């Protein structure tokens, strides 16, 4: 169990960094990077926990991480396409300019 602690601490730090990135960054591409950091925190948690099962490395956790990476990639691709469209409309990547929808 003690061997897990460094991993869990870094998962927690990655979560904080990802959330902070989503909340504080103004650039749309940086927000997508923050999203990717959040996904990777969860992936790291999977890999770390798959190492800790009694005496062997569990292939289930590892294979799930492979699939999850693909799914994150799809989400980020759609996000980048939207950023491209937003850039065509507004001529900027600043998310503060996308404030016409309220309430």
């Amino acid at each position: 169990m003690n061997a897990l602690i460094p991993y869990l601490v870094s998962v927690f730090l990655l979560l904080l960094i990802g959330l902070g990135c989503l909340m504080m960054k103004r650039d749309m591409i940086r927000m997508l990077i923050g999203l990717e950091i959040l996904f990777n925190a969860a992936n790291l948690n999977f890999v770390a926990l798959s190492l800790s099962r009694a005496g062997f490395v569990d292939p289930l956790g590892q294979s799930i991480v492979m699939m999850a990476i693909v799914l994150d990639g799809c989400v980020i691709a759609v996000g980048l396409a939207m950023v491209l469209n937003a850039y065509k409309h507004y001529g900027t990547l600043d998310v503060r300019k996308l404030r016409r929808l309220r309430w």
Partner: protein
Amino acid sequence: MVMISPLSASFLPLPLAVLLLGGGTLPLIGLLAEKTGLRRLRELWAIAFSALNLISIYLLYQELRASPGRVIVSSLLGSPPLAGCFEIDTLGVYMAGCVALLGFLAVVYSYHYMEEESRLTEFYTLVLLMMAGMTGVALAGDFFTLFVFWEMMGISSYVLVAFLKYRWGPIEAGFKYLIMSATGSAFLLLSMSLIYGMSGTLNFAYLSASLRGVEPSPWLLLLLATLIVGFGVKSAIVPFHTWLPDAHPEAPGPISALLSGIVIETGLYALMRVTYLTFTPSVYRSVFAALAVITMTVANIMALLQNDLKRLLAYSSISQIGYMLIGLSTGTAYGLMGSLLHILNHSLMKGLAFLAAGNITHQTGMRDIEKLRGVGRMMPYTMLSLSISLLGLGGVPATNGFISKFILFSSAIGAGMPILAVAGVLNSALSMAYYLRVMKNFISTPEGEFEAEEAPALMVAVNLLMALLILLLGLWPQPAIRYADAASRMLVEGLGRYIQAVVGR
């Protein structure tokens, strides 16, 4: 217990196979339609496959009804089913049935609504894939399969929200939706990893056998919190709801109906299934009860302030999610039956309300309630169906909304939480204020500068059919109640059988 039948022995459950086949072949059909000039081929293809989906759900339902309490297990990777498996029970088929019904009606409605738009091949492909994602979530037998289909539903819906990309609204709303919803998915993945770390498996039956009833530890509470964040963002429970009033109104009409009518309920269904399988209700009761009251109250007060018709309906969807949470927080079979019944009824009522609002925006190009004064006199059939759906959403007797709200509130009293029933009744009264305002404005004498004609016949026909279903289920609710009751009993009383069907293989 578990028998392999011609319907279930296939690689995928039948409805899912139908939808994936339809969605996968639609690009080819679209190409064919462009080449040959038969432009309507895409629409007809999509309608045919969503009708086939409805039929295959019915076949699956017949098969399950023949032997009550049966669980069909179909695994892609052999047994024991570790990942990539489906466990089809009455509850899953109930939810998939709601998806198929509203999906079929929305696709038929799109036939005229979307005919002016370009890129229709992409549109119908994404609609079919979104339906496939929801059906997969409903039928999934392990958490990872659920997550894959969850993302499939999510990605299709992000693109569909931003589909009308030549206007600024959909792009803004789509980006906001994507960021918030994908954050929710990341938390869902985190909760999966926590479950995996605690029990070593992601299969619902195994994890229920190993985690349910364990003394609550800090890790379990962390798991509950990540689950609520993960599913709560998609189902728009109040602290996480801010994307919904932007995303749902900006989507095209039939997509708003699908998103509000069934996508957020799929989130609620997944929350219901996973929390019930992982925890005993005493762990999460008070959390869900508090969330239910906050969700109802905040959403209803916000809806009172809206002037945009579709935005008002979107806030009303959030408050309906609050009502459904009442049933979850009771944790009894009766309360869950109320929630499930309200999912079906709300999918019809809110689907109809958004489709009727779609008629109005399609004919006039406006969504402002004050400017649309008197539109109901120009579009009588649309107005009739809109009124029926709004009265249903408010819970007026003789509509199906009354039946499910009655069951929900009485279950709250039965479970010893009368405060929830009081909050629910007060909120229903509050919600009537804005529904009646819409109706009053639309029926009053036109002052305006605009002319409107009644929408095309097919769109009106879909509206009237749904209005008829609302009245029918309000006056003669027994079949729906029986079906919802079987589904909720499957979850509550059939839990042991559910585990046995998988573990005992």
